[in-house]
């Protein structure tokens, strides 16, 4: 299956740098370079989001000003915060189960990074485009749960343990509706390949007074879109589903015992997951990188879409109460799961009738 992978960005780089002639080694260097670029773009985005944008957005919701000391609109707080966080003492709890304790933050952050490998971000930025793109992205995104369990279990802390157990319970309850809803999109496209899913959404659905409305799946099937968004918010663990962390209940859940660099990694991982969640939503339902203007600025539209999802999570955080774990599980297994299967069957019927 993997052999059927296309790799747009590495190919492009290879062509540009004249590496295409050097065989496997050239491909390897080009792929590394491409991965380096994509990784850095995503890390830069989380860097902006974590220490600065998040604060400013929340402040707007709650009538505050937030960071405004360094640089215009306080943007200079990003390097300051980075320095502060990295220079803090790393406290290792007594009885921590190492190396699991050390690996966990890497898994949480890394799993999200892996997901970006198959996301078509527009403007030709896509590391790889395997046949099984969608399955791959769901698979790697859920590896984060493993990281959370490792973190919670290895911390030798009861709050961490509770947080880890909650994380697993929550992800089990929401992964299935998430994937099943995602599959309903596949029924339309007939392909798991990300680029084809995006391509399928580019046709015009209807024209209203000269304005062409594209056949984004969010417009074609809004029900699935809402379902997917809700499951996605649960998947990335944000209000009203921030139960694995639940600061007022179990302190900080699975990450209670982490400090300094490890904390930064976990924090980074969380934001990466939000952006990955946004990216999957954009690809599946919002036409990927599509937007007005030439195709070359597609990446900008893509960034706008994933930041819109980020904004949504921050909005929910300011305004939505947290559910109780048992209520969440109940909604997941008794509500979302049924709705997602219903959606799947309905979509299948509609697709069957149209086709």
């Amino acid at each position: 299956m993997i052999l059927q992978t296309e790799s747009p960005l590495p190919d492009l780089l290879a062509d540009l740098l004249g590496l295409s002639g050097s065989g496997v080694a050239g491909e390897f260097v080009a792929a590394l370079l491409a991965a380096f670029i994509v990784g850095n773009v995503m890390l830069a985005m989380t860097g902006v989001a974590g220490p600065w944008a998040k604060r400013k957005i929340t402040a707007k919701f709650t009538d505050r000003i937030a960071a405004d000391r360094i640089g215009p609109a306080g943007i200079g707080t990003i390097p300051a915060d980075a320095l502060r966080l990295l220079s803090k003492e790393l406290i290792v709890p007594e009885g921590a189960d190492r190396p699991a304790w050390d690996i966990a933050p890497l898994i949480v952050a890394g799993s999200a990074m892996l997901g970006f490998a198959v996301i078509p971000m527009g403007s030709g930025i896509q590391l790889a485009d395997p046949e099984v793109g969608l399955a791959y992205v769901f698979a790697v995104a859920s590896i984060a749960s493993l990281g959370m369990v490792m973190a919670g279990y290895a911390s030798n802390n009861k709050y961490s343990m509770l947080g880890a157990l909650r994380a697993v319970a929550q992800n089990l309850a929401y992964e299935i509706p998430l994937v099943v809803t995602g599959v309903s999109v596949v029924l339309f496209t007939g392909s798991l390949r990300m680029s084809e899913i995006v391509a399928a959404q580019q046709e015009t659905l209807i024209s209203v007074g000269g304005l062409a409305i594209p056949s984004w799946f969010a417009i074609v099937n809004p029900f699935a879109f809402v379902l997917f968004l809700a499951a996605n918010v649960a998947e990335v663990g944000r209000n009203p589903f921030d139960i694995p962390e639940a600061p007022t209940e179990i302190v900080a859940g699975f990450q209670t015992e982490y400090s300094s660099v490890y904390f930064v990694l976990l924090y980074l991982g969380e934001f990466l997951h939000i952006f990955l969640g946004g990216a999957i939503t954009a690809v599946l339902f919002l036409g990927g990188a599509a937007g007005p203007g030439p195709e070359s600025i597609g990446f900008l539209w893509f960034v706008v879409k994933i930041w819109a999802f980020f904004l949504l999570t921050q909005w929910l955080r300011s305004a939505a109460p947290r559910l109780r774990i048992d209520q969440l599980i109940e909604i997941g297994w008794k509500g979302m799961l049924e709705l997602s299967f219903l959606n799947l069957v309905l979509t299948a019927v509609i697709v069957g009738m149209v086709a």
Partner: protein
Amino acid sequence: MSLQEESETPEIESGETELEALLDDLIVDRDDHMNAPAFVIRPDTVQETLGRLKEEAGYDHLSLVTAEEYPDRFESIYHLKKFDDPTDEVSIVVPTDSENPVSESAEPVFRTADWHEREAYDLVGIEYDDHPDLRRILLPETWQGHPMGLDYDQDRPQMVPLRENANPLQEDQRAESDSDTMFVNIGPHHPATHGVLHLETTLDGEQVVDVEPDIGYLHRNEEQMAQNGTYRHQIMPYPDRWDYISAGLLNEWAYARAAEDLADIEVPEYAQIIRTMGAELCRIAAHMLAVGTFALDIYGDFTAIFMYAIRDREEVQNILEDLTGQRLMFNYFRLGGVVWDLPEPREEFFESIREFVDGLPDRLEEYHDLITGNEILQMRTVGTGILPEEVAKNYGATGPVARGSGIDYDIRRDDPYGYYDELDWEVPVEDGCDNFSRLLVRLREVEESAKIIEQCVDLLEDWPEDERNIQANVPRTLRPEDDKEIYRTVEGAKGELGVYIRSDGTEKPGRFKIRSPCFSNLQTLPEMSNGEYIPDMIAALGSLDIVLGEVDR
């Protein structure tokens, strides 16, 4: 315990002979207090006496247990009231001999006596027979001596290493039959404990099997501090520090009411109106914080409601700062009135209050949109943290906690003081008995307080300039007669806040006892949360709205 003269009859006479008849075989003496008749009984008949008073005479509210050591005896006083009519009071005095201070526990009759008697044991040293769990409550379990006892040595070193303290993890906490429970310390440093509260929690998965509040981290024996201060000036600053969540004026009133009644001081009407207005402003500020922090508990950090509540509370604080000169520790009341008149220019001050009060309905609308109208919040709070009416009464719960359980009890209306009985307002009561009801009661009380403030401003605006008497004539030094005892309560932000004073003929109180509403309210936590999920326990704790400064005193 010296027998009072017949001329000093208490205020309430009705039913006194009936009480005497009811307790005929139990009474050994009379020792009337200024606020209530008091019967002296033998230490082994406490349960019998209180049981009869509760079941047959309807005294269903054990407001306070006061303990004191005298040179020849120990004494516990049970201050009883009726939830239907708090002016109908009776005190039961239980002397025990000083060699072997053992008295029967009232816990089987009133659950609330549990903690009150533990405190009496901790600070004074009276032991209670038949008490389910007689341990120290405010001081560390390794503390040597009883600080309010007469032979207490202040200079005795109290350095006890940590290893001497009981370690709940040392023994296996798991019961043999149930090996799945886990012991967790929630607090003293935890995001949801609203201060330094320690909850010793036993969990079965996510469910709370048992929770036991461990208090005393903020204890500094405010009672003894008050006993070392003179009535006139030195005590008044302390009440601000009990419930320090900007409820200062309400607390000051508790002391003022008791001391003024003790020394027979009449407060001028004008000062009463200022007091009433100031106290209600404090109540709004306190309830705003309560609602805001409750939202934190349910929503998680960074919720908009908390910031909105703080923003609105800030406006109240600005008004209070104009009035008292302080933002937190007001020290504004004086015995016989208040320390100074309203700030000049008065019009501007009234304008600022009116502006706030007029804007309040819109803001409350916003709160209802954001909080009470939110389906998820309703899922979380409706039907959780259940505190049935009878249980609430048994635990001596008061304030919004009681009113959220359908108990129509408000000292401002039922035992009027200040200017409340002249004004037009209502007591909000909800009978849902759950977290949601307690939240609703607080939000509705803010509305009522605003009504009161508005009426006070109307009155103050029209008050003739030459009749603005802010303080009665009070002697420079107050020396109430020897051995007068009084227990007076006011409606604080968290509930019934009371002060018991026994005068000893000097300028300082012989015994000063604080009835903290949070102390009694917090006792209900296990009742509300055992068997529930952790988040519900946190919500229940938030809905109790405790302030550790007042719990620990």
